């Protein structure tokens, strides 16, 4: 994932690139040594701003914005939102948000594809089905082992013909 961000961070004018979750947790970052020291606060502030903007437009019946830009005296913050994460790019004063539009879209699409690809990866013959593996992987093991019993006999009974279920 960092490789995707690094290609974006190499563009002229790009100071810092970060992938964050919707609630402001940094996932990965590339570029900028100064910002990387305070990546957590940057992620939290950026996510908080995006959530504020989303809440502000909600009374108008609008969905969350897909792309937001904040151009200011000391640089520009561009955020591109996807269903699972948010790509944050900080630009220098000389760069315009339009310069990174295509690259950001491409990077986020690649990240989404990689994420999606991992979820639905083809399995070796004889392995359990993809849906089962996904369900097993997505649920972490509980702290206390438990037994998944078969349903009770009554629950397996079918209603008698002509009677509605549950009577």
């Amino acid at each position, binding site marked *: 994932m960092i490789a995707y961000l690094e290609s974006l961070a190499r563009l002229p004018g790009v100071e810092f690139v970060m992938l964050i979750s919707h609630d402001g947790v940094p996932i990965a970052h590339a570029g900028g040594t100064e910002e990387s020291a305070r990546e957590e606060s*940057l992620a939290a*502030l*950026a996510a*908080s*701003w995006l959530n*504020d*903007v989303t*809440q*502000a*437009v909600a*009374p*108008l019946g*609008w*969905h*969350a*914005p*897909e*792309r*937001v*830009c*904040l*151009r*200011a*005296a*000391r*640089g*520009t*913050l561009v955020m591109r939102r996807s269903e699972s994460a948010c790509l944050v790019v900080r630009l220098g004063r000389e760069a315009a*948000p339009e310069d990174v539009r295509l690259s950001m879209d491409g990077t986020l699409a690649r990240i989404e594809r990689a994420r999606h690809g991992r979820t639905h990866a083809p399995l070796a013959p004889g392995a359990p089905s993809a849906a089962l593996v996904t369900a097993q992987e997505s649920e972490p093991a509980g702290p206390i082992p438990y037994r998944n019993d078969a349903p009770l006999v009554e629950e397996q009974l079918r209603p008698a013909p002509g009677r509605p279920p549950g009577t």
Partner: protein
Amino acid sequence: MNFLNRFLSLGRIRRSKRALVADPTPRNYLALAQQYSLAGRSDAAQRACVEGLAAFPANIQLSRYHQRTRRSERETRLAELHRELAEAPRAPLWRELCEILIESDELVRAEEELARWLARDKDSEAYYLLARVHLARFFADRGRDQGRAAWAALEQAIAHLPHDLRPLRAKLDFLTRIGAWKDARDCAARCLAVEPGTLELEGRYRTLSARAEDAPSFERALHEVERSGKLPGEDGGAGARASTGSVQALLRELAGQPDVQAALYVRGSTALVQGPKGATAERTARSVQTILSGSRSAARRLGLGQVFQIQLEGSFGTLSIAPGEQDAGALLCSGPLGRSREEALLGMAGLNAATGGEGVPS
């Protein structure tokens, strides 16, 4: 530039001058300034721009070219200073370099140069210039952290220059501007101790003493500035320059374009809205104001400084907001904003038009 080029440029400059005499238009002023620049005479190019701007003050091309020539002259001087510093580093050169960088708002570069200067020979002047960098950053961003950094840098500068009034005065101005009157009064007393009998300082001391009664502490004052984004005395109602009519005409013109859904002008707690009507207009204005205040605060916290533009894109279209010091213009389009509309929007910000009673309260 070789002799032949210089000789040829003289002819071109003469022709440009004749064209300007025959037809004094902004275009001819610009052509003359460009010829001067090509001949390497940036001072003459600047004079031509200044003369042109005096005759055509609203001309954007001339004003941009004037800025460009100033910037290039500044860059030339900076390059010279860097060269001289590499050969024989000395305090007056560092000072000039850092002052140029601070005045042109290149605070990061100024800070880097100051760090280099301090690492070399802990000059007291460098501490004062460092305090100026932190102050400039605070006044641009108005964040609490920048305010604390400015305070610390000022204290350090005062410690290194105990008999110099400049850092003390800078601290006095800083405390007065953020509204920490009590601390400002104490600072005025320190200034008077350094320079007793100064009438202006005595007057300031008396004024500050009168206001120190219920004054907020330094931290509280900083918190208030960060929250509101305004320094005490920066009243939203003061300085209305354009009339309501001129803004409304601009809004009507923008809203009349085919894919524009709404055009807004926000100032203080009221807004002028073209496009949506009734409750929708009210809701739109309120949303724009919420985004505006949230974004200003976010930019301060992120260390980005003063906000120039906020743009939201989504299934609703494009909402672009251009904030001025006290007002803002906003445009909601179903498609992309486009260059001409962006320029119109940026022109709307900073008009400081009066909206009293005629807009949508929000």
